[in-house]
């Protein structure tokens, strides 16, 4: 990949006003999450329980998948398995083609974004309509989602108004969110009524029952699965939970962490197909088993996709979701993407390692520790620029040798103040590009300490 996060982020921050607007819009969601979680006295006990359920599930994931398959099949669902994106896409297309379906309505599924399902189906003559409002907006704009919960958070309402004017024939200049949402409601109603199949993601798959839970606020998954006769549900292997009552924990955490709501408007529990209909469940690996095998990273598979880590991340808020160039942006995406593909090697460095993400994560993923572990792996594999590696090697040597350290300090104090500014802030001074170098003190810390002790 030619361009990494720093280059894409530089473009985003070049519009200072917009960057601050985005920062505030996302931070507002973080504040709603804080308000919601603080009303729950057993919040930390819930996080601990959620983390323990996921840890347990991952330790027996294959057993639980088999149990899920058995129970789902007994309920009349069909279970399919896909090693990778290509197999997933072929299975979905096969199901649609065999039934002559040419119009598909989709609710939010980051997995199908990851597998690039839409373009795969579109070139094969199938109309794919993303029905979550935010996803529909980015689909009409020809973009990827910039956030997993709020896919169009990077757009201003005026831009959405212009987009809808072209595609939905709304009034010129209209930018009122209520008006635009109403227009989308009518537009999407027509799509739901005409669809031959509905595809959903999966929030939770329950081994004990063979059931699936899909959570939405708009009700778009429910529209898409209750009108057409064919429901295809696509899930990564990590969506499993053992028991239905575990949902009590996750549903209390998910919406509060995501948007500050006490629960999503619709939490639909599917168990088998509806009368006269079909339910097909596609279970996808696509690199997840490899992540499970990496001890430092396997905790990332506990993610329930609430987006809280991005809402709190100072780097995400100021660089925007598209600068990550991966389906899942922010701290969790910065683990999942490079764990799968070294082309995303810049992402673990798109972090201050401040740990705010780990503090808000409802399943207590140690995100910043994992980002650090990835940096170490990537540096060992030479996926870090040689200049940075050289600088760090020099720094390590200087810090390891007291004499060298003292000499470097002396040079910095004596020489740097004499160097003309134009020479100091040259192109290769990456630090100085956005920052001022500190004012050099006259004396070293050691000298100051010695003087104070004597007087």
């Amino acid at each position, binding site marked *: 990949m030619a361009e990494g996060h720093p280059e894409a982020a530089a473009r985003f921050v070049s519009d200072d006003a917009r960057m601050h607007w985005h920062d505030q819009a996302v931070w507002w969601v973080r504040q709603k999450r804080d308000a919601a979680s603080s009303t729950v006295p*057993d919040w930390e006990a819930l996080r601990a329980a959620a983390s323990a359920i996921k840890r347990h599930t991952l330790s027996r994931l294959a057993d639980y998948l088999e149990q899920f398959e058995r129970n789902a099949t007994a309920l009349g669902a069909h279970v399919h398995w896909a090693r990778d994106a290509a197999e997933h896409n072929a299975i979905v297309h096969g199901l649609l083609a065999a039934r002559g379906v040419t119009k598909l309505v989709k609710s939010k599924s980051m997995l199908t974004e990851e597998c690039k399902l839409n373009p795969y189906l579109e070139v094969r003559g199938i109309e794919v309509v993303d029905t979550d*409002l935010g996803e529909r907006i980015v689909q009409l704009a020809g973009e990827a989602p910039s956030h997993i919960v709020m896919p169009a958070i990077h757009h201003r309402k005026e831009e959405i108004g212009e987009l809808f004017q072209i595609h939905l024939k709304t009034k010129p200049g209209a930018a009122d969110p209520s008006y635009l949402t109403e227009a989308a409601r009518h537009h999407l109603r027509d799509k739901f009524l005409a669809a031959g199949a509905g595809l959903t993601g999966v929030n939770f798959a329950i081994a004990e029952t063979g059931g699936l839970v899909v959570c939405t606020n708009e009700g778009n998954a429910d529209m898409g699965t209750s009108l057409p006769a064919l429901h295809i549900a696509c899930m990564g292997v990590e969506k499993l939970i053992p028991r239905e009552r575990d949902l009590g924990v996750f549903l*209390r955490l998910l919406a509060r962490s995501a948007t500050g709501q006490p*629960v999503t408007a619709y939490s639909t529990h599917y168990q088998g197909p509806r009368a006269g209909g079909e339910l097909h469940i596609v279970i996808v690996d696509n690199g997840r088993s490899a992540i499970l095998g990496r001890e430092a990273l396997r905790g990332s598979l506990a993610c329930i996709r609430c987006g809280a880590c991005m809402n709190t991340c100072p780097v995400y808020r100021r660089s925007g979701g598209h600068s990550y160039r991966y389906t899942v942006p922010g701290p969790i995406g910065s683990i999942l993407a490079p764990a799968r593909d070294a082309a995303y090697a810049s992402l673990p460095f798109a972090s201050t390692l401040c740990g705010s993400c780990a503090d808000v994560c409802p399943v207590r993923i140690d995100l910043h520790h994992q980002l650090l572990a990835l940096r170490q792996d990537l540096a060992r594999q030479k996926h870090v620029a040689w200049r940075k590696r050289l600088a760090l090697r020099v720094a390590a040597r200087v810090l390891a040798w007291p004499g060298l350290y003292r000499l470097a300090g002396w040079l910095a104090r004596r020489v740097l103040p004499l160097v003309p500014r134009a020479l100091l802030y040259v192109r290769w001074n990456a630090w100085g590009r956005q920052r001022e170098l500190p004012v050099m003190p006259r004396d070293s810390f050691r000298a100051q300490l010695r003087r104070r002790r004597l007087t």
Partner: protein
Amino acid sequence: MTARDDILGRLRRAAPPACEPPTLDALGVTFPDPLAQLAAAMATVGGACVRVADRAAAEAAIAALPQVAAARQIVSLAPGLGHALPGTLDLAAIDDPHALASLDVAILPGTLAVAENAAVWIDGRVLLHRAVFVITDHLVLVVHARDVVHHMHQAYDRIADRPRGYGLFISGPSKTADIEQVLVVGAQGARTCTLIVIEDAAPAR
């Protein structure tokens, strides 16, 4: 090797050491007045809660709702409620859910309501067509006060022994904040959600 066996084999080889699942018994918060909490939670999720003394009062409260008074098509699946309203459809006579596209009001019985978050459990067996709760413009849910639980853990205990099948929690009307974080109620599903809580002491169903 099939994809299934391949994936399961890889997951088995990669599995971390076994660890036990947690007990969930200590979780959940109880409220001094769960009905008041339920009404407050319903308001925060954009719905409304109407508390009535008995079934006759519930019938009157439903008929008095402006969205019901203005409705041309109504479906009621709540036993003994709303069936005499003008415009009531017989859902059993409808084969294809697409025919529900102009439905104005659906009146549905809830198995239970959760005070913590205003989630109402709807058992799929009562629906006849799954579309009915989401395709309708307005939703009226009916629960008995004795079926109000404090939190989600109690809710899952209560529904644990139901026959296997479809069901869902509904908490308020359909909503979105996908355009500049402005909350808009009535995204794709119901535009309003009114919960009728019947506080009579009738024996449990």
